[in-house]
């Protein structure tokens, strides 16, 4: 009998190069670092508390929403209602998050609970109603927007100022509290979850759902979880926006939906599911916001901002498509 090994020789990897796929995380971080350096260079105040805190604050809301969107995207879904959940949470916050400390605490919990509920409804429509995520969340998004408008027909309301100051200024006099808040919330939720089989299921069903099912995972539970997480993080974003603006506005949602998808893609996640990191997505959100800040300081017309964001998005998506363009089997590209 022959002892020939059938498979081609193992591809050897140079010892110092990145493992395959690592560029997906490295690239947004590097680009963000470059943009950050540019920002500091052209900012009138340079690297100072007065420049850093606004920079940190302005992207936190989008970062929360993008992290929420990421959990749906990684399961190969898309949440078009995420901006509407943000708007509903924002509107509710302007009604509920004021008064005595107990009232404020109850209000915060209530807003987060409503966000989770919205996500659970999305998840149920997808899992039990067997509706495609895009269609299901398009419909529920309209409903949530309607509810937000009932809660707050015109912008306004009242949000506790002391808490707002606490969250939007600095800790120890120099470090933006909002960044600590963002990373604390994400860490507390995702770190333990990523070490459970359920958390791993999110990636697994996005990568190959039937293989995940055959391996004994529960795709329904994972998909439901993804949507609940999306609702929760959207509500976090809505709350923070309320603290930032001290009011509620039912019409803020739409741009967040699209920007969250952009941030997820720029952050290295694949819309085909199964790939991406939370850190990359947060970097993606900051990257988008940093571009707009730079544009303000360079004196470029603000109207051109969408144009540049669009170019960055296109570049990010193109980088992700390189694998496909270089594929030598045309059928693989179609799949």
């Amino acid at each position, binding site marked *: *009998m022959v002892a020939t*090994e*059938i498979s*081609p020789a193992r*591809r050897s990897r140079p010892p110092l190069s990145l493992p395959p796929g690592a560029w997906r995380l490295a690239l947004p971080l590097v680009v963000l670092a470059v943009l950050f350096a540019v920002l500091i260079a052209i900012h009138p105040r340079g690297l100072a508390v007065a420049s850093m805190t606004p920079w940190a604050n302005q992207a936190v809301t989008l970062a929360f929403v993008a992290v929420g969107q990421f959990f749906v995207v990684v399961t190969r879904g898309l949440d078009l209602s995420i901006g509407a959940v943000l708007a509903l949470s924002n509107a509710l916050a302007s009604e509920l998050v004021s008064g005595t400390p107990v009232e404020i605490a109850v209000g915060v919990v209530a807003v987060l609970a409503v966000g989770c509920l919205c996500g659970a409804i999305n998840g149920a429509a997808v899992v039990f109603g067997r509706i495609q995520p895009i269609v299901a969340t398009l419909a529920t998004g309209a409903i949530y927007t309607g509810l937000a408008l009932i809660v707050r027909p015109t912008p306004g309301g009242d949000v506790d100022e002391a808490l707002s100051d606490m969250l939007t200024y600095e800790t120890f006099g120099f470090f933006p509290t909002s960044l600590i808040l963002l990373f604390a919330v994400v860490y507390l939720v995702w770190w333990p979850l990523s070490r459970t*089989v359920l958390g791993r299921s999110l990636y697994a069903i996005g990568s190959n759902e039937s293989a995940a099912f055959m391996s*004994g995972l529960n795709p329904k539970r994972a998909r439901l979880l993804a949507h609940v997480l999306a609702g929760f993080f959207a509500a976090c974003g809505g709350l923070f926006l309320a603290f930032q603006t001290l009011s509620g506005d039912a019409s803020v949602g739409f741009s967040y939906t699209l920007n969250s998808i952009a941030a997820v893609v720029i952050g290295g996640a694949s819309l085909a599911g199964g790939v991406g990191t939370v850190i990359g997505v947060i970097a993606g959100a900051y990257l988008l916001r940093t571009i707009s800040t730079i544009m303000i300081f360079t004196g470029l017309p603000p109207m051109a901002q969408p144009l540049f964001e669009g170019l960055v998005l296109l570049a990010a998506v193109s980088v992700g498509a390189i694998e496909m363009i270089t594929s030598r*089997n045309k059928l693989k590209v179609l799949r």
Partner: protein
Amino acid sequence: MPSPDDRAALAGRDRGLLSDVEFVALSGISKSYGGTTALESVDLRIRRASIHAILGENGAGKSTLIKVLTGVVRPDAGTVTIEGAAFAVRSPATAAAAGIACVFQELSLVPDLSVADNIFLARGTGPLGFIDRRRQQKAAEALLRELGSEVRPTDIVRSLTLSEAQLVEIAKAMAKRPRLLILDEATSALGEQQVGRLFEILRRLRSEGVSILYITHRMHEVDTLCDTCSVFRNGRHVETFPQGERSPDAVVELMLGRSVSQIYPAKPAPAAGQPLLDVRDLSWDGRIDKVSFVVRPGEIYGIGGLDGHGQQETLLALFGVLRNVTGEVRFDGRSVHIGSPGRAKGRALGIALVPEDRKSEGLHLPLTIAHNLTLSVLNRLTRFGVINGGRQRRLVDDLMRRLQIKSSSPKAPVSSLSGGNQQKVVLAKWLACDPRLILLCDPTRGIDVGTKAEIYALLRRLADEGAAIVLHTTDYDELIGLCDRVGIFYGGTILRELTGDALNERNILRASFALATDGPTDSGGH
């Protein structure tokens, strides 16, 4: 689930005694998909400490049997008992909890996660079910080393070759420490050494009391490994007997239900004349390596060998699907460049490809039969870009009659047809372009014997009418019964060409493993 210590204790006992103990029993299991019966009141007993072969041709119900045992599908009727107690296998998770693990033929790996994550996909290795990455890594490493794999636990599954992935799939099933281990064509991509190593492990597991269900179409593996054989045919369990009790011929007869000769049309005298297709040193991406062969009009040329040795890629290259193919393709005497499927099927060449997976590559399932049939010839049915309804109807009626497609109406969706009739639609769709060269990839997979015979007769008739046919199949009988000449692929190239009396199962098998063949052979192709 018994601990490793329990197993060691069992290993010490007399295996003869242990193997009388029944572990899983199926009784009256039936399952049908739409109108097709996949399993019909199947009774089967699987004893402990036994390696039990399941034999049967494609569509005999083997894969449905596995799906029932692993909870992927639920049977319409019948019961499963484990150690005498009724057990509802509701999902893969419940099957795993009962100690049933499976090495799936189509692999159950998640491409974007690491090897270690895949091996322990549904189980945390740490306290409270949390994932302990270090422990997971170590355990994966140990399993892979035992199987003789060089894959690292941190490698991403997407980057593995098929044979590496198959070993990971085996490691994944073994990691569950199953009491019933099912292997479905688990060695199709493995090298000889790896197979030998796997067999050693399986024999050791048997001595520890594990039941093993071994599905294969390689008779020699059954001979060297298994102690019990069960034959399935058309969804029924035909017979179970101790391995070695029947001759291979008798087993084949049991699988087919009739002798081989009846279902194949008679072969004509060897075709003479100029080749229509002349392939010289075709190479691509390290997976096709200098493939050369010729096919003449009127000839059915078979492509065989173990799965994954470049057969499919060769057909795809000839249909213009692959980029950067090197070598020369001469068509009707002229050197041609086949850049795309559109060019391949065009009037200048007239090549048709019946793809491997009819559901994803051959058909548009929700569309009607008529729409599917005319898809590849729409440009010939139009005037100024508008489809001529009358011409379309005539073509569709003609094709449905020629191939005897059984359906209530050409307006019925293709998804409503049985597998055999779906495959006829794929064939008819390509016949509509009057191809001169027809490439087929496993056209009879999962099709009943009756329809198979119809398809064989059709292919022979097409050849007689002057078409050249290249047929890739994993079914040895088809190569022997239907083809005029057969090229056996090994390591991306045609290692040997078999014809006449040399075209027999023994030689095909030997050539597939790169062993010397008996009788006159004609290697090369020129």
